[in-house]
């Protein structure tokens, strides 16, 4: 095997790590906002992602059946729609369910699990039990080959840029916007925030909905690399939680860091051992680290009240 081959493989493997990183990050972000900022465990996170995926499917159906010129361009639109739909669903869920359960995190966990079961059945009734495949625009499914033997998946690049965009967006929103201010205030001290005239209930709802919306975007993006079916969400939920907890629920940077760490661990070990054992090694490492640093990598150290 020639030197250039080795270089190519190294590059592509590095890219593999990066794209897994961005996948995990996309999964985690929405949850990081909900779980990290509000301390709510949303077990239905995966299903909100599925909403996004099915949104893409519906758009692609439109494109196929009614408006063929639409096909190459519908994807970005569909992603916005995915955010909107998931956001709406999240809004409703918060109003109907979550808001009654703050201060009872473990119960929220059970309730949202129930929610996820219900949503799965809804998907099944609406879209049928079989998997569907949105016809994706060709520009998304190809690969970019700067030199022979080196192929960079475009969908990987796409997911990556989306991840960067969303992370940036969230950071900006959290630290530069009124909403972010309200959220952080509410997180820091609910009573105070209330006293300061912040409508914390509304903030909660908005936060939750935004988190779900981001899940929707992630799900939409994953149609480019994964499957779309009633139970697709269940493929993601655990990883999402591990990313968030591993990073330290409180901090977004933690989420980024842990997504990166896990991704590298996974893809490197995958390269040197078989997939199954790689999976186990990664999970074990995560659990052990969590046992040593229960609050995650980036726990902020404050006086225990």
């Amino acid at each position, binding site marked *: *095997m020639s030197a250039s*081959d080795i270089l*190519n*493989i190294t590059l*592509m*493997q590095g*890219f*593999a790590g990066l*794209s*897994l990183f961005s*996948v995990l990050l996309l999964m985690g972000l929405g949850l990081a906002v909900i779980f990290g900022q509000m301390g709510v465990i949303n077990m239905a996170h995966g299903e909100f992602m599925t909403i996004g995926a099915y949104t893409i499917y519906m758009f692609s159906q439109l494109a196929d059946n009614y408006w063929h010129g639409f096909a190459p361009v519908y994807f970005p639109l569909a992603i916005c729609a995915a955010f909107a739909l998931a956001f709406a669903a999240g809004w409703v869920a918060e109003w109907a369910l979550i808001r009654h359960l703050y201060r009872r995190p473990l119960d929220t966990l059970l309730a949202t699990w129930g929610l996820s079961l219900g949503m799965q*059945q809804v998907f*099944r009734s609406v879209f*049928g*039990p*079989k*998997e*569907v*495949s*949105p*016809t*994706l625009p060709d520009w998304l*499914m*190809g*690969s970019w*080959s700067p030199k022979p*033997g080196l*192929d960079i*998946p*475009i*969908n*990987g690049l796409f997911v990556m840029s989306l991840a960067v965009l969303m992370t940036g967006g969230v950071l900006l929103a959290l630290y530069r916007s009124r909403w972010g201010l309200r959220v952080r205030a509410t997180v820091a001290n609910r009573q105070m925030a209330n006293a300061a005239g912040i409508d914390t209930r509304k903030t909660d709802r908005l936060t939750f909905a935004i988190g779900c919306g981001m899940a929707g975007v992630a799900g939409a993006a*994953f149609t*480019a*690399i*994964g*499957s*779309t*079916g*009633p*139970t*697709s969400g*269940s*493929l*993601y939920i655990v990883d999402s939680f591990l990313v968030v907890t591993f990073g330290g629920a409180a901090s977004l940077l933690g989420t980024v860091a842990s997504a990166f760490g896990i991704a590298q661990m*996974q*893809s490197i070990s*995958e*390269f040197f051992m*078989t*997939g*199954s054992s*790689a*999976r186990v090694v990664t999970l074990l490492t995560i659990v052990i680290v969590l046992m040593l640093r229960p609050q995650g990598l980036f726990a902020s150290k404050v006086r225990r009240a």
Partner: protein
Amino acid sequence: MSHDDQNESGMPSALRRKLLMGLAAAPALAVSGIARAQQFPTAKVNTTHLAVTDTEVTVGQLHSATGTMAISETGSIQAERLAIEQINAAGGILGRKIKVIQEDGASDWPTFAEKSKKLLENDHVAAVFGCWTSASRKAVLPIFERDNGLLYYPTFYEGLEQSHNVFYTGQEATQQILWGLNWANQTKKAKSFFLIGSDYIWPRTSNKIARKHIEQHLSGCKVVGEEYYPLGTTNFNSLINKIKIAKPDCIYAIIVGGSNVAFYKQLKAAGITADKQFLLTISVTEDEVLGIGGENFAGFYSAMKYFESLENDNNKKFVAAFKAKYGPKSVIGDVTQAAYLGPWLWKAAVEKAGSFDVDKVVAASPGIELKSAPEGYVKIHANHHLWSRTRIGQAQADGQFKVVAESPDLIEPNPFPKGYQ
């Protein structure tokens, strides 16, 4: 027979129209049915307390309607329904209409066990058409053997099994694998193979057989890689890079479920497309292509005994009936067809035995032929598997397969292949 029955029944539309016009035909059928029922008194055809009356025989259907496996098992449910309705429309079995009790295995092996117990010990069904994964079959097998039930199992599987109480209407591993590999070697000049699979018994056993065959029976061929990923894995970039290093002539893939979709999408995105790379799989039927997307799988090859696009009259009838019942968009994969065979094989055996008693049906089964099988012609082997042909289909962008090769004659089922274990 009532009006709706006919509409329900998936008979070719021409035939149905005829029946609809002259309802006379229906009573005629029914009458002859009753006549035959008297010809086979219940006391004679059912000496083992099965759920058989003078006018009805009850069978069970046990698949996953919910859970992750529903994706795959729905096709089988539909095909078995179709077959049973057609049988009923044609007068039933020994003059008795088939009544179906459907149970949901919910993609959960223990539930399969529970439901099979219920069907056998509670409902005393004469036969069960069901299961899809090996795990669910393994879970119910002891129950069928204890209660001496009768199971028709539709999925191609790893073999290494043969039960008095089970008929395997799909292919066992060697039937599906060996001829396909020979073809890959002779026609496609493949010398180096990269074996990949989801991490459970069927892919592992199948790859084991494949490896043995490649290394011992195909001259100058070698396996350059063998990899397994947990069920539900959605990221295959590392694997794809390993494949790029190994540069195999042939990727031999046995990945299932959601992973399947992820794998082929990422394969395409990594620049490994049919025009550059030869890939042969035994785990992708028309059903899976639905999820993967025809454009992402186009050009790759599948080794199956059945493809929806098969050119023969049986299949034309079958496909027409299926689509008439389940809509023009519905697709038919290998397992769906195999599931469709179940009720017909059972009917043939019962009529040959002149009894519903399991032991008699089992005894009568070996040698039974089905000339009307969509896949062509099948025959039950003494080892409860089917003689069948193996075909190679090349996937088209529209999600259909173009049959490019077909084994010259029926391949004998060999669930315990010597030298391959």
